[in-house]
Every structure is written in structure tokens, then in C-alpha cells.
């Protein structure tokens, strides 16, 4: 998928969770992406993080960095 589309999707998710109680927002975004995005999509967005994070909402960025630490997809090849 194009990075642009993945970024748009991640930002949409972040916008929703940004309105939820603050304590759970980052975890909410991370859990949503972990639950519904295929590993290929997750690897692609991690690759986008490595290429400058362009266009990502700050909450989406924090959530993806959080998710990346525990996501096996982050450690496997594309």
C-alpha cells in the first residue's frame, strides 16, 4: 500500500482516539492497528517511520513507536 494511504488511515485512527480519555489514547491507536492491520501494512508503516515519519499525526506517531517495540512484524522482513 502507498505510504500516503497508510498515513491517512493511521491519522484517522489517531483522530478518533485523541478524543478518548487521555490515558488510553496511545494504547488505543496501537491496539487498533495491531488488531486490524495485516503485518505487511504494519511493516510498511514502520518503514515510513524510518523514512522521516512524514504526515503522521503526533498521536499516531507515538502509538506506532509504542507498538513497534512489541510487534513481531517489526522484526520480520517485508
Amino acid at each position, binding site marked *: 500500500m*502507498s505510504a500516503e494511504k497508510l498515513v*491517512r*488511515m493511521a491519522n484517522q485512527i489517531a483522530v478518533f482516539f*485523541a478524543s478518548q480519555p487521555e490515558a488510553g489514547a496511545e494504547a488505543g491507536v496501537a491496539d487498533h492497528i495491531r*488488531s*486490524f492491520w*495485516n503485518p*505487511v501494512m504494519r511493516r510498511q508503516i514502520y518503514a515510513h517511520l524510518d523514512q522521516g515519519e512524514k504526515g503522521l499525526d503526533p498521536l499516531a506517531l507515538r502509538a506506532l513507536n509504542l507498538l513497534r517495540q512489541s510487534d513481531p512484524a517489526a522484526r520480520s522482513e517485508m
Partner: protein
Amino acid sequence: MALNRETDFGTPQKDGPLVSLTIDGVRVQAPRGTSVMAAAAKAGTQIPKLCATDSLEAFGSCRLCLVEIEGRRGAPASCTTLVEEGMVVATQTQRLVDLRRGVMELYISDHPLDCLTCSANGDCQLQDMAGAVGLRDVRYGQDGAQHHTIGKDESNPYFTFDSSKCIVCSRCVRACEDVQGSFALTIDGRGLGSLVSTGGADFLSSECVSCGACVQACPTAALNEKSVVDMGTPTRSLLTTCAYCGVGCTFRAEMQGDKVVRMVPSKEGKANEGHSCVKGRFAWGYATHKDRIVKPMIRAAITDPWREVTWEEAFSYAANEFRRIQNTYGRDAVGGITSSRCTNEETFLVQKLIRVGFGNNNVDTCARVCHSPTGYGLKTAFGTSAGTQDFSSVEESDVIILIGANPTDAHPVFASRMKKRLRDGAKLIVIDPRRIDLVRSAHVEADHHLPLLPGTNVAIINALSHVIVTEGLIDEAFVRERCDLQDFEVWARFIAQPHNSPEETEKLTGVLAGDVRAAARLFATGGNGAIYYGLGVTEHSQGSTTVMGMANLAMATGNLGRRGVGINPLRGQNNVQGACDMGSFPHEFSGYRHVSDDATRDMFENMWGATLSAEPGLRIPNMLDEALEGRFKGIYIQGEDIAQSDPDTKHVTRGLENMECVIVQDLFLNETAKYAHVFFPGSSFLEKDGTFTNAERRISRVRKAIAPLAGLADWETTLGFAGALGCDMHYDHPGEIMDEVAQLTPTFAGVSYDKLDALGSLQWPCNAQAPEGTPIMHVDRFVRGKGKFMVTEFVPTDERTGPRFPLILTTGRILSQYNVGIQTQRTQNNVWHPEDVLEIHPFDAEQRGLREGDLVALLSRAGEVSLHAHISERMQPGVVYTTFHHASTGANVVTTDYSDWATNCPEYKVTAVQVQRTNRWSDWQEEERRSSGLMRVIAGKADSGKADAAE
């Protein structure tokens, strides 16, 4: 299989305390409120009748059902006389015989005596009654004033009206009023001049919606199916379930040998209780249409002609291709789509094949593009991904919110039930950009129509909740007992903020604050409040948020857990609920359990003897995106037409073109099949056994009426493909598949074909706690425990109007057509809707110099199509509307790839467009017309390769 006609008790069945009476010397019991006629019928005595039928309240006009009652004078009509304790009734005395015979003489004196050549011969209640009363002579002869020379009205494609055969019993008029709610018929004239009338027009051009209720109610040949006129009366029948919308009506398929003569709605069907719509009742001819593909076909490239092959060769070719692709590009390079038109058993098999045989979770279903936000939203709020009520619950609703749904077109049988309740006094709040029929139609008028701008559902739902919270209208006892209080408090603080007030949201929605406040007060204080909704809610970038917002509203007002209330998604396709239940989503097994849940996965792995992936697979739009990236190369599509139904058509077809093996399993060479390499001929609902699950979670049997035209039912085709892949799955009958579903799925644990045959249908959850199913969900507690309030901030869609695209396009459905039209366009339903048109408000039309019927170009950033304009005040200025039923229109060429934040459900309902007069079809349409036939050529078949015959 004999022809089973259902017993007609003459008047509706009643519930109530039993009273005892004696009928013809036999002591019987019947519920209070029951007519003597129905009590007698229940006891096995059919009192002669003509104007009575148990789908209608008693009318008392034919004077044939007279009885004698001890202690009463005269001979009262048994249909209008209610049972009383100790009543003694005689149904067959000499006096009654004489009276009835006299009545019948009068009827027959004005009725053609052509029984032997009459289309209703053998299925005529007038004929039956003549026999029952012993009519041997008509003293008045046939020479008096009569109606024999009145011509037939044959304008309706499916039934005839022959006034000469009409006995003016008013059953048709009452059925149109009481059952259908259309009020299209009346009795014109007086005395002998009385005639059933459509109000000056013929049937086709009248208000009649061809539901068939009048035909079913008619006791003679006055209203008769043309199929019966052509073929004669049926000789055998079986009960099955309609394959059109998510209402899931039960029908009696009435047949002669292997030919269907007619489909008659069954009283035994709890979803429809004997009613039907034009699609289920009449539009079944597609099943044997000449366009049906009945031989498997393959081709190496989509530019090649199709080559007919044996099933074995097709399976082998498809399996080899999929294995080649996986060996070349990796295990995840293939996937599949289950069909919401196929049975539960068939969708279960397809997802099993993908998870086991393909070795990944790349399975999705058409719910992705319709009700996936329902699943997400309701699971989040309540803990389960389904509507909360049964259809009959609406009979106890006092206030109904109808949002983003147009049930008179898309779910007509449920709409009739809703209209009946509205005529009986329930209040209605319609939230819809268009003035749909239920805003104002015969004897129904919404108390509030909130005509919001497309894309602002969340804002208006929040505004309704704001009024309820800030005006102290919360059902505090319900919230305290049933909901998570911490979540509630967070939500209540959020919703009370000024930006959620009607006065502020008016700037977004365009709906006057006063109207919103009045509607909110009505919903909160008007008694049982129910919310019904459709794709106008879900197909938005905030579809899931709106579903959660409605759940908030229902919980805040205590409108859950009993009859008359609830959150009710009106599902689009016949088995979209079932397809979701059966594990068709890439992240869930059957019963909505995530693939990463180890205990669940262990259970499936043990049952299936395979290692399963714990990772979510690709969703349909993701598959197409991956195809464009060159990583997704093969897809098995069962009974879906994504090249027509999914948004941004050019994106879809480019994705399909990039694949190396597209397998389509369908009845016809649909739009997607143009891009396919393997075609597995599908089987219609008449050709197989199985079950469908409707919008109220009701599992109903589909029964095989005729042999599969292509030799295999769809479930057998999937087994054949699986076998060729080396993925052995063995079942002798779909009932065995359901047994496996029951073993693996807690909500289906108590479901079996034996129980379905015994009880007729079951609503899941059906298990040890609810062995006969669950009509109403969340009665004492929510499935998740405490109900969860979610903060639902309004976020405008990224799809914005501007100078280039100043109008908003929203799309929808029409009564006579179904989904992509592949079925209904192969019926005579085209007489009502031969093409998709663009509805546009007179103001917008005038600004563009448009006149009714002008060809207009509809342009968006995604594409352009041309279609004819229909100027309509149903639209609000700034908003245009069309349907997506016709492939030649290509409505989805202009829709975009924006989608719901949670589920990727496409935002069909908001596309920024421009409309302008044109004198040409769009380039896309011209190219489609040029290439469409070429992509459908079948080698050796001279007449193949025409553009889709339905078009």
C-alpha cells in the same frame, strides 16, 4: 413433496386467556378475542367464507360464514363474532345451508362459468365454496347485469387483474392497506357498480408496489400470477428463505416437477409473517435465465476467450495457479472473498479453505463495504456485533428514530411492519438528507424530519444526546445499573460541552436546533424508543463512530434489553449477518473471536488439523492496494461483484488486472468476471440446502427445490477446489457443516438442522442458556458486562466540496432493483427502473440549465460518468443522489477510496461532485461498452461476448 397449503383460520390468531365454548357439539377452547370462525378452524371445522382470510382483520361482508348461536337471534357472521365462555355454536344447520346457498347463487350469477379453463381452477375459493354449500343451480341465471365483459388489466409484469372474476370481497384492498400499507387500491362505485380500482390508473402506473399481498389475498382468479396463468397451478411445494435483502422472508416455493411456478410468502416465517415484496415474490426468474453460466470455464489471460472445461479441469487449473502464485510470491499473495448471497455453510467453507488451504487470513466479505462499522461499534458498546431486537419488536415501539435507512425501498417487508405500527400511533423521527417515502406517505407522516447534510451523522446524534444530558432526560436508573459509570461520566461531560449543542451543530448539519431539541425530547420521553439504521450511517468516514453514538443514545435513554427498543441495523444482503457470523473477516473466526486469541485458535486448529495464522489478514481494499503494488496475485471471489459494487471502480479494476489468477464463482459473467481467469458457475438459492441469517440474527433454512444447473451447489464447488489444493474437507450435506459451526462457535452451539426443522428458525445466541434462541439481546446484562459509553467527537470527512466539485453525491437503492442488479435486471423488474438516474434539486438543476431527462455528466476527483437527470424536491439543494444498480452507469466510478476510520468501510455516502449537461457518455462508459463484450467471449459460442445481457 406434496403441495402444502397453509391453513387459513379466517381471522388473525390471538393471544390471551382461554375461553371454552361448544362448536357443533364439540367443546373447544380459544384465546379471548378469537373469532368463532378461527376457533372453529382451529378445532378442524372450516366455516365457509369468502371475504375472510387470517392475514386481515374481519370484514363481515360476504355473508357466507353465518352461524347460529344459542340464545342469539339471527345468524351472525362467525368472522366478526368473538368467542365467549359457554357459547354454543352450530355451523351447519339446514337454515344456514339455505342461507349460504342463496348467497352463493348471487355471487355466481355475476361470475363467468369458465372454471375448466380458468387459471385458478383448483385454487379458487369461490369454486371451493360453491362445492361446500352444495350449489347445484343458480336461480337468477347469467342474463342479468354483470361484469363479464370488463377487460383484463395486464399492465403489471407479474400478475393480471380480471375484474370479471372479482367478487368485490375487498380482500385485495384491505391487504394493500393493512398488510402492505400502500393504500393503492380502493372500491369505486356502489352496488352492482362496485369495482376494485387503482384510482384511475392501471396497476403498473398506479401507487401499487407489486408486493403481491393483493394477489395472495384474492380468493378467485381476479388477481392471479401470470406464471400460474401460463403454467397452471403448482403440484408440490417446500419452505425456503428468500435470497434478496436482509429481512430474510420465508417463502413456499410452489412447483410443477422441477419448474418453479410461484413463490408465496409463508405465514410460518417469523421475519415476514406471510408478507413479501416485489423482489422475493416475483423476481426469481433470474435463477433460470438464459444468461446463466452452467459450465466451468478457464482462460490464461483476460484478453483470451473463455474455454469451457470440466469441473475437474477447472479445479485443477485453479489450484495449480494458486500454488504457483504462492510458490512465486509467497503464501500471503492470495486470498478470497466470501459471499453474503451464499449460505452460512458456504461462507464458512470459503473462510476455512482460506485459513487452512491458503494458509493465511486474507479473507473478507461484502460487509466490509456495508455494515462492518456496525460490527465494530456494537461490539465495542455492548460486546456483540449484531442488532439487539427481532423485527416484531417494532410493534411495541413508541418512538422510532430512522437514520440513514430507506426501508420502503431496501427492506420493504420490514417497512410494512413499521408503517403498521406508525399508523397505530408510534412517533417517527427521520434523519436523512433525502425526503424518503416515510417522511410523508399514505397514512404515515414523520413527526420530525431532520434533513442533515451528508457526512454529519455524528454531529446530529451528539446533538440529540446533548439535549438529553443537559435537560436531565437521562434514564439514571438504567445507566446506574447496566452501564460502566466511569465511562458514562466521561461521556456525559463530553456530550454536555457547548460544541455538541443543537445550536452549534446546526452550523454543520444544516438542521434547525429547535427541531433537534424537539426530536430529542420526544425520543427521551415518548416511551419505548427504537433506533433503526442502514448504510446511510455506516458508509461514512465516521461510520463506526455514529454506531457508537447511537449506542450511547440508546443506553442514556434506557432503550435496550426489552421489546420495542434497541439498536437495529437493517442489513443489506440476505446473508450479510451470517457471512460476518461465520468468520469472514480477516481478523476474526466465527463468532467474532480474534485470530490472535490462543484458546480460540487452538480449538480451530484441533478441529481442522492445521496450524492457523494468528495475524489479521488483508481486507478487500488492502488486497486491491497490495495487488497494485504487485504483491497480491490471486483471489477467489464467491458471489460478489467488486468491480461494480466497490468504490472507485477504476482502482478496483486496476487491482484485478494486476492479478495473475482471479477466480469468480457466480451465476452470471458479472463485471468482476471480465477480469477473471477461472469461472466456477454458481448455484442459486433454489438449487441448494443451507441457512441464511437475517438482520435480526434469525437463522432460517434454505431448501433445495431444484437440482443445481451446473451440477454442483456452491458448497460442493468450494469442496472441489479445496480438494484440488490438497486441503481435504469432507461433508455429505450442509447440515454437517452447520454441526461443525455449532461445535466451534459458542453462539451457535445449540443450532442444528433438526432443531431448525422443528422450530422453523432460531435467533442466535442459541446455546445451553438459550436453547430456542434469543429474540432480544442484552435483557439483564450486556454481553460485555457493563454497557460502554464512548466519546464520539465529530470529525468532518476529508472529502470536501469546493469550486470544482460543489455538490455532494450520496448513493442508495431502489425497491425494484437489488444491489448490483445482476439478479433483478434479469427479471421484469426493469420495467420500474431501467437505468440509474441522478436526482437533483430544482435549484441546482436551474443553476446548471438542466431539464428533466437531460443527459448529465457527473464528475468527481475519482472519475466521470454520464446519466440522465431527474429533478426532484426529495433532494435538498447541494445534494444529489443516484443508485448503483446498473453496470452501464458505473456510479462507483465517481465514488472515492475514503473510508471509515475503524473498518475501512468505504464512504459511499459523501462524494464531492460537479454536475453539468453533456451530450456524450463518459470515456469510461465508452471504453466499457467497447471492451465489455470482448472480455466475455466464450470460445465456440457465437452469441457470447455481447455486453452484459442484463444491460
